[in-house]
């Protein structure tokens, strides 16, 4: 068993954990971050991609709105490469109370948001597919944020400051000496090997799974996973994020992300955060809900459906770190020393993607206090790798890059304009890539064909390069096809049903994947 010593062991490679790793590393602490899977595979990789302006929380959760507004501004400064500056609109549809719009405007201003009411005609000129029957419209600073890019940038930044990151390392044991947590033992999910990490402080950043991690240390964290369903539509229906101006409910946000639009979401309590099954009814509900914002939405081509589990923390949770926060979508740092008499363990619970930086700052402040060393937080101004030019990404970026590419750099994914060079660059970053990891890194297989054409290409290329053995390439392909099926199997209508048939023809008819040797 390998043993590593570190100042801070971060459990969870989602936005929270990656943020904590970046923050700690900048403060001069040695960080080791582990995740049971690839990074950004939990809730962070399974949300709608909305960089909140705060508008969604303005009325019912002003604390969260204020945090979102402030963090949104900071992220635009330090992580431009991960953000598309789409802007956002809150619109009063015929079903929304106009009186709410007044409250919204006042609350948004109160929360420090940049908000302006725009004439309905102007909103409709900007967004021709928007419901022409809207009655009021407010422009806000929503954006879309690429979670995979963001988490990758945070981790690369942390690594550049000495951090160690270990994907596919599942915590099997939290090492506890009497009243003190001293580290953890991880099992490499690919090789079965165990790694022991001795840490000055362990940060439980497992989000919706943080209850499971805390349990290993004999503590309890009352996180309640709340499942939200999202559906990706095959093109951009709007330039800006479209929000219904009403009390937040299901299916009232449409976010333009990369080549698609994502509609979300729902909120159902689930017992197990790994319960990500989506029913045809939930998809149907989203398609119907979209009609209010974009008439004809139900006729659009749904590409894929997925769900994620929010790490909701009921208000009654005690906390000794940053103090109680009043509201449920905000976050809480739980110092298990003060709370449960178990030293060396801190849980960061609740929160949301947009406030990941603040969550990390609050958490590492507690860690620094416990370790008795570590500098001031620097994440407010430190620019993330890739964002040095401060240019936001935009939908034409990849086309622009592809056109600038040398002609001998073939495209391997036409849907998402991924070139061979892009693939080579990403796989050089670390060993042991699954096709699904490459998908998150490059969006290969996320377009209309859902991997029908490109999955075989990538598997074949990685095999040819010696990164995959034969059996590995076969199982990588099988696994990827199976994984993609999860998100399309309930979309059995329209053009995507037709696409599914073509993909099946390719895999069964042309390649005969079913009868490949193991």
């Amino acid at each position, binding site marked *: 068993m390998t043993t590593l010593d570190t100042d801070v062991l971060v459990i969870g490679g989602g936005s929270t954990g990656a943020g904590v790793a970046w923050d700690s590393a900048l403060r001069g602490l040695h960080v080791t971050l582990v995740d049971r899977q690839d990074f950004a595979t939990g809730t962070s990789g399974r949300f709608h991609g909305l960089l909140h302006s705060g508008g969604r929380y303005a009325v019912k959760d002003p604390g969260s709105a204020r945090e979102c507004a402030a963090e949104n501004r900071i992220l635009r400064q330090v992580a431009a490469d991960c953000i598309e500056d789409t802007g956002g609109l809150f619109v009063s549809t015929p079903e929304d109370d106009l009186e709410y719009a007044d409250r919204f405007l006042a609350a948004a201003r109160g929360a420090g948001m940049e908000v302006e009411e725009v004439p309905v005609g102007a909103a409709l000129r900007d967004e021709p597919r928007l419901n022409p029957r809207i009655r009021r419209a407010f422009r806000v600073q929503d954006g879309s944020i690429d979670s995979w890019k963001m988490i990758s940038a945070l981790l690369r930044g942390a690594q550049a400051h000495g951090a160690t990151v270990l994907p596919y390392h599942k915590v099997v044991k939290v090492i506890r000496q009497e009243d003190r947590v001293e580290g953890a033992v991880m099992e490499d999910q690919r090789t079965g090997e165990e790694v022991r990490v001795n840490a000055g402080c362990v940060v439980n950043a497992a989000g919706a799974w943080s209850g499971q991690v805390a349990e290993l240390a004999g503590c309890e964290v009352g996180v309640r996973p709340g499942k939200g369903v999202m559906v990706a539509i095959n093109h951009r229906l709007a330039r800006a994020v479209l929000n219904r101006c009403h009390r937040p409910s299901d299916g009232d946000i449409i976010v333009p992300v990369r080549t698609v639009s994502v509609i979300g979401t729902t909120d159902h309590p689930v017992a197990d955060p790994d319960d990500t099954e989506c029913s045809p009814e939930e998809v149907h509900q989203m398609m119907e809900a979209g009609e209010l914002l974009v008439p004809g939405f139900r006729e659009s081509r749904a590409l894929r459906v997925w769900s994620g589990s929010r790490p909701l923390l009921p208000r009654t949770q005690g906390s000794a770190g940053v103090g109680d926060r009043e509201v449920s979508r905000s976050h809480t740092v739980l110092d298990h020393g003060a709370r449960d008499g178990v030293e060396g363990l801190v849980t960061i619970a609740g929160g949301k993607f947009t406030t990941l930086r603040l969550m990390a700052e609050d958490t590492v402040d507690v860690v620094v206090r416990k370790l008795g060393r570590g500098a001031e937080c620097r994440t407010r101004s430190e620019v993330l790798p890739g964002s040095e030019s401060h240019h936001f990404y935009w939908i034409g970026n990849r086309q622009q890059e592809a056109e600038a590419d040398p002609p001998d750099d073939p495209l391997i994914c036409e849907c998402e304009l991924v070139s061979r060079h892009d693939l080579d660059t990403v796989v050089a970053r670390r060993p042991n890539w699954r096709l699904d990891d490459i998908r998150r890194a490059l969006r290969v297989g996320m377009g209309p064909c859902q991997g029908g054409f490109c999955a075989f290409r990538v598997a074949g290329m990685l*095999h040819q390069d010696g990164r995959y053995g034969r059996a590995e390439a076969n199982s990588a392909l099988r696994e990827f096809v199976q994984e993609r*099926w999860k998100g399309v199997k309930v979309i059995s*209508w329209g053009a995507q049903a037709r696409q599914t048939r073509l993909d099946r023809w390719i895999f069964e008819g042309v390649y005969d994947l079913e009868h490949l040797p193991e």
Partner: protein
Amino acid sequence: MGTDAVVMGAGTAGMVAALRLAAAGASVLVLAEGEGGLPLAPAQIDVLGYRPQLVLDPLGELGGFLESRPDHPYRLVEAAEVEASLDWFLELAAPLGYTGSPRLNRLQPTALGALRPTCLVPQTMAAGDLRGGGSVLVVGLKGFRDFHAPLLAENLALARPPSGAEVRARAVEVSLLGDPRDLRPQLLVRRLEERPVLAELGREIRSRLEQEDLVGVPAVLGLERSHEVWQRLQELVGRPVFEIPTAPPSQPGQRLQQHLFRALRRLGGEVRLGARASGYRARGDRLAAVKVVTAAREVEIPAARFVLATGGIGTGGITAGPEGELREEVFGARVSRGGAPEEPLLEYLATQPLDRLGVEVDDEQRPLGGGGGVLFENLWAAGAALAGAEPWREKSGEGISLATGYRAARLAGGARP
């Protein structure tokens, strides 16, 4: 004036029905929205490959297969007629050198290196039957994204045909003249029709040969002049050469499509693409005309007999709505799931809800209406439009299209009485 027969759909089933009707003296018009599946298909003629165990003798095992799958479209056709349709096809496709027998499955490598059962193959693939084993040099082309020789060869070397014979395979990768990268099959077929490029490829392969007695290449050996390209490459290499089908678009599929289109034109028939049948006019229990939307207006095309060969969900003959409603697009014929489950299964490679979808027909292949009766006395369905088959899993698609297209033409009769 007018047309004896209108066939909707220009895939294998539609073209077979059209050719048979035309050969019997009918004037035939094929209407198709798009080009259908033919130019995407590997152009191997599958009859029955898995039931689910490997099928060695497709015709001989058809009866046993139908016992387990009584709703399968093969139930509609006597084995003798299946055989007759394949014999007819062999003759029709003789210029492409189709070879094989419905009584014997060949085992041909796929682009992933699985040994795949199929019955008839064009001459350019004929040497790739590895039933009796063999030693293959798999040749990849540098820059061609849809063919990865090392993975293919390594998988192929593990394949075990039922004969127990050994398959050996080794991969090499060669560059075409000037090393053109980002090669797409549409471009490669043109390049290989250039003699210097082909000569260079041949020399390169020959220099890389060791003990192998066969050479497998991606299926891009020319389009219009594929026979010549293939033959010349064999001469240059000094070993039998065979093509291995790749992902769509398929060059062998386009060769077959062009061949079928030409054959119909020679018989006086016409293929009209971009002509989507959008409705119909009935007279009593007979179909009088189909309506087609053209650029400017909807036109009626009257005929005495009609064949529906628009395929299933994959080609748009049948559509599925968000509420689960299934619709045959031209006539609203009754659609059946063919015994597939209502809810999707988690396991991808299982029978899924849309896998066996198609129209329901009577014993004479006439689509049924909502009430369960025959829709029209003079409308017959064929091919992938029929419910009950899983063509890609069981490797049966072309056989069904040939047999039911052939039979539909017989049932529809020849020229106008």
